[in-house]
């Protein structure tokens, strides 16, 4: 790995200076500057809402900054629309998946740059361009089905292949690994290194610090819309160093294993199947324990949870919550039975983005009786729980205007308000910054300590290893390993998950 000790003496490939961007009520960028040199992997770090995505969108021409300048190859440029950036050789992998669900992988990879003349598409050439890029990234699904039917991870690879196939000189990646497991992330890093050695510069956002230390040549840290620091890899002493820069204070490191002995079973599942996806899974989560559930993407963990709560059609011999037997065929029944499920896709499954924070938090059980809604109480209840979660946004604000971490807090807050015995977190910290991540981890532990049974589905292996009292590994719809936290290592989990 090449490590730069200082800024190279060459002109930056891209240089942004004093960018300012205001949204109604928010100053997302407040004089940010960024330099990216050719052939480097440049990590962009910052808490949720620090302005990373906004900065990258400005560099890609998707947003026009209010002021400030952008220079590409030493020459000042106006990027009014994505086309301008694409023409200059800038590609972007967006934080929100941005594929056309109805088109297949090849069509998506070449979208907007289709080979051919006079409006006709030369599909042969398009394939020749797209297939190697997909293969290089380890894309393993069919390239002929609409990508909407692929798993999130495979979609992510398609998105990456878009940038790779474009042959861009600068690739901007906004949290490309957020929905990838270790295995797929590694594959991605391999590609990133290849790209770098071919002279391509990469700007890369991630909340997974080990990754950053592993990959980046240079790091820029943002806080509250401003550039805090720019360092070469060699100047970074470790994760703590980065966290300090990002958050402005020290944070506890990961590792929140329980101390008490787990109690009675909180959740018992006997032989639950979701046709085609989950096969006769049985498991038990005790009160006071956090059970981590690892697996490759597509292993069926989410489907297991959805089947359990009645959101997917499922069959089971028995489901017990806190010792009581339940028949669950609709999420309402799951909630009443005492199961809280925090979905993996916050935006489409967890939140009503157009609704107020208060409405979101109280969604399963709005305060009031006889079908009425007590708005006043709703606000107070929501403000109360959000305050305790450390949110600073007035609860009348729309959920959609918050950053990822704060959005996740809304979902967490919602389920704190229901009197649940079982909490299932599906990818609880996907796309969430270190600060908020720590808070959510502490919260999970606190729930366990309060006697709740916690099941944590996560593709973030350090998180699984650091948090779980017990680790279940799923593969192809079955539980293939039940590991004690003492015996579990990164290698053993990956070995079970990959089969």
């Amino acid at each position: 790995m090449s490590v730069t000790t200082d800024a190279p003496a060459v002109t930056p490939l891209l240089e942004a200076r004093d960018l300012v961007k205001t949204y109604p009520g928010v100053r997302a960028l407040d004089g940010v500057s960024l330099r990216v040199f050719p052939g480097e992997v440049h990590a962009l770090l910052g808490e949720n809402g620090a302005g990373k995505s906004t900065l990258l969108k400005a560099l890609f021409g998707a947003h026009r900054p209010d002021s400030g300048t952008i220079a590409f190859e030493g020459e000042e440029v106006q990027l009014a629309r994505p086309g301008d950036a694409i023409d200059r050789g800038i590609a972007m992998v967006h934080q929100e998946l941005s594929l056309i669900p109805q088109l297949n992988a090849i069509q998506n990879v070449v979208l907007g740059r289709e080979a051919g003349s006079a409006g006709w598409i030369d599909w042969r050439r398009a394939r020749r361009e797209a297939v190697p890029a997909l293969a290089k990234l380890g894309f393993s699904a069919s390239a002929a089905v609409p990508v909407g039917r692929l798993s999130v991870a495979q979609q992510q690879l398609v998105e990456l292949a878009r940038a790779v196939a474009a042959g861009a000189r600068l690739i901007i990646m906004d949290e490309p690994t957020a929905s990838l497991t270790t295995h797929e992330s590694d594959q991605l890093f391999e590609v990133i290194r290849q790209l770098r050695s071919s002279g391509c510069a990469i700007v890369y956002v991630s909340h997974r610090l080990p990754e950053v230390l592993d990959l980046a040549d240079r790091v820029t840290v943002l806080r509250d819309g401003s550039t805090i620091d720019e360092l070469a890899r060699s100047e970074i002493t470790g994760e703590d160093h980065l966290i300090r820069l990002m958050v402005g204070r020290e944070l506890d490191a990961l590792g929140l294993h329980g101390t008490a002995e787990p109690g009675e079973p909180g959740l018992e599942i006997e032989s639950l199947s979701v046709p085609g996806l989950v096969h006769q899974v049985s498991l038990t989560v005790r009160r006071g324990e956090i059970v981590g559930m690892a697996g490759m993407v597509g292993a069926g963990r989410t489907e297991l949870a959805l089947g359990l709560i009645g959101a997917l059609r499922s069959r089971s011999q028995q489901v017990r919550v806190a010792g009581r037997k339940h028949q669950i065929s609709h999420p309402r029944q799951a909630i009443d039975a005492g199961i809280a499920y925090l979905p993996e896709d916050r935006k489409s499954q967890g939140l009503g983005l157009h609704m107020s924070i208060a409405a979101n938090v109280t969604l399963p059980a709005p305060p009031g009786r006889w079908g009425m809604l007590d708005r006043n109480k709703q606000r107070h209840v929501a403000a109360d729980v959000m305050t305790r979660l450390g949110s600073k946004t007035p609860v009348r604000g729309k959920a959609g205007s918050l950053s990822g971490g704060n959005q996740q807090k809304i979902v967490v807050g919602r389920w704190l308000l229901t009197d649940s015995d079982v909490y299932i977190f599906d990818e609880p910290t996907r796309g969430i910054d270190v600060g908020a991540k720590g808070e959510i981890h502490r919260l999970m532990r606190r729930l366990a300590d309060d006697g709740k049974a916690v099941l944590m589905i996560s593709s973030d292996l350090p998180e699984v290893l650091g948090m779980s009292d017990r680790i279940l590994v799923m593969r192809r719809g079955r539980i293939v390993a039940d590991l004690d936290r003492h015996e579990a290592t990164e290698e053993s989990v990956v070995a079970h998950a990959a089969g």
Partner: protein
Amino acid sequence: MNATTQTAPDVDGALPDLLGGVSWADRIRSAARGAGLVAVIIILFVAFTIARPSFGSGDNMVAILLQASVVGVMAIGQTYVLLTGGIDLSIGSIVAVSAISAGMFAHSMPAPVAILGGIAVGALAGLANGLLITLTGITPFVVTLGTMSIYSGVALIIAGGRAVYDIPQLFKDLLAGRMVGVPIPIVLVIAFAVGSALVMKFTRFGEYLIAVGGSAQTARLAGINVKGITTGAYVLSGAGAGLAGAILVARLGAADPTIGADLLLTAIAATVMGGTKLSGGEGSMFGALFGAVLIATLTAGLTALNVQAFYQQVAVGAAIIIALLVDRIARRERTA
């Protein structure tokens, strides 16, 4: 089942007050939007009055509101449906079925029962829409495109293609009379709007409508009975159309099986002019009412100016687009 447990971790230090802040800006904003439409109505009214002074009489204002009331009731019902992200193309036909039913009931039952019967028929037709949509998963547009045709045929079949007339006086008095000097349809449409606005603000059903319209998946995972809520919206839309049908019977003293067909697009236009989004999750009950008043004012004004039929079509079409354009510009300016 849903006691608020205090399991959240305590955070030390002063708790910032999350209750305040946005509220006033938001209130002014949404008030301003309603006000924008009202302003357009007033401008039109003043302009027409300048051109034809008698247009500005109190009587005429009442006549315009009366005219707006039928479309208004339908538009408010439609708003429920649009909030869920659906659409109800069958309301025109439901007006006809309900009108015929109410008219026929009126010949064999006491007037109040006949009126409620007509509304119930509308609600039932809405229920059928809702069930078809939620149970089959076919898009609302298609289902109600189908039932639009079905209900219209049913209205003609049960009426034998004939109008029902000789509506009892009590029926007419109840729905077309006056209450403390105000025509009852106006009272009804205002009551429906106020009631609906209260439902949106102070009931779970209203809250859930918005949740379903914004993201059905989120709503379902939060334990909301999405199918039930959606069906409820269609029932209300049907009931609104049923009430519109009953009002028309009372006003015209007859129930015609083809009545209402021309009201569908007007009602939808009123709803969207009132700021309700076709994409769901956002809408305004009063907006629907104002939209109906705007269209009635425009039609009345063009009639007062004796504008020829062909040109009236052009003017009404242009008004729909311009109203939404003004709304958009106003909003963009407020946000920018």
